[in-house]
């Protein structure tokens, strides 16, 4: 039964849209969201503190040549992959390069936790094979890819709650954690919120409750699921509005919960009957 749930078939079209969103985001991540990674090209080499994976493999200390080669290769390959062509070859290449890109990013003293779902999406998309925007036939391989991305997204919440209990203990909920976060990176909105007595503590109770309950998304009736996803997104809107943390790659991975094939229907409806003969999908 668990196997059937893990590989519950989805329309190929959904995977096709998800694939394009994910690979376009790789491009945007490099140039818009995390441009600082590239700055490590000329960060002095002795500030490099490789992560365990970097020591095991063992990966080289980043040099300008290495960092810039990965940067430009990823820009070209991610856009090529976004077209849906050669999904395995381009998909694996993008996954390997982006993973190394992230290892470089996290090897200078700070590890981010906003992209496990996204890394999982990159790792599994190549296993789906060819998909097309208008192909409504069902695929189990695609269903698995979306399912494990969803699981990784929910792990980011649920396991974060467990990490809070492990590291901060139960007193996390009444600690000064949000007050500290606001002092470090709070917006004007956050400064207004921070002075309301008890509000930050209530928010901390809310956060851990929502994180612990997040796996329920897998059992709520389908018709409510999009609302739950909307709630997740609203949490990140609030986080961004108060402490300017975007979790952008996580937000992209979360689209794996959405009926993305409807984008195709929407655009076709908008294009009217003339679109009936024009195929939006590259072949």
């Amino acid at each position: 039964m668990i196997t059937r749930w893990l590989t519950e078939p989805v329309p190929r079209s959904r995977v096709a849209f998800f694939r394009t969103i994910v690979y376009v985001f790789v491009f945007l991540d490099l140039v818009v969201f995390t441009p600082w990674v590239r700055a490590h090209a000329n960060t002095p080499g002795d500030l490099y503190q490789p992560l365990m994976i970097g020591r095991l493999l063992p990966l080289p200390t980043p040099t300008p040549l290495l960092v810039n080669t990965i940067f430009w290769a990823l820009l070209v390959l991610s856009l090529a992959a976004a077209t849906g062509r050669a999904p395995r070859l381009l998909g694996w290449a993008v996954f390997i390069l982006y993973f190394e890109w992230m290892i470089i990013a996290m090897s200078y003293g700070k590890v981010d936790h906003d992209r496990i779902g996204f890394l999982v999406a990159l790792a599994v998309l190549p296993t789906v094979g060819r998909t097309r925007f208008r192909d409504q036939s069902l695929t189990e391989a695609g269903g698995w890819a979306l399912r494990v991305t969803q699981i990784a997204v929910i792990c980011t919440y649920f396991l974060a709650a467990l990490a809070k209990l492990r590291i901060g203990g139960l007193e996390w909920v009444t600690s000064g954690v949000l007050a500290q976060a606001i002092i470090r990176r709070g917006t004007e909105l956050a400064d207004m919120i921070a002075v309301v007595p008890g509000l930050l503590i209530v928010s901390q109770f809310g956060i851990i409750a929502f994180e612990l309950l997040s796996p329920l998304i897998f059992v709520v009736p389908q018709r409510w699921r999009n609302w739950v996803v909307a709630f997740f997104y609203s949490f990140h809107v609030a986080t961004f509005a108060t402490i300017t943390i975007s979790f952008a790659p996580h937000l992209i991975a979360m689209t794996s919960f959405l009926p993305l094939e409807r984008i195709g229907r929407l655009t076709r409806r908008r294009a009217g009957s003339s679109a009936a003969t024009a195929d939006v999908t590259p072949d």
Partner: protein
Amino acid sequence: MSELTTRGRRVRVVATFACLALLVAGTFFGDDDHFPFGPFRMYASSPDPDGDAKDTRVEGVDVTGKTIVITESNSGIRRAEIEGQQAAYEREPARMARIAEAYAEHTPGAPALREVRIVVRWHGIQDARPTGTWTDEVVADWVRP
């Protein structure tokens, strides 16, 4: 509908549970070094609701005597990365020469830095709310020899 082969299905189920097991193990026993399987420990600590909050900044003083805040955009090094290695900078302030180098590299044409220091601004917190008061503490200081 295209169905998976028995083998394809088995490989996927095994891979799913293996990764999940690593992630759960990382959550309970791992640390950041185990990326991508380390714990999701962002904001997981429990600072004292009546304790001071730490806001770290890195400052440089250039040869003209001007104080500059070192940021990701003028040095390519993120604040959290300097904090992550703060103990090493405190032990060995000479290491901060690297920050001056990174600044020179990323801000071409700017006067060179003759001093780099890590300053912690301690903000007062009472009942998990900021009090609006603060004091500065220099935790590491490097002056170009």
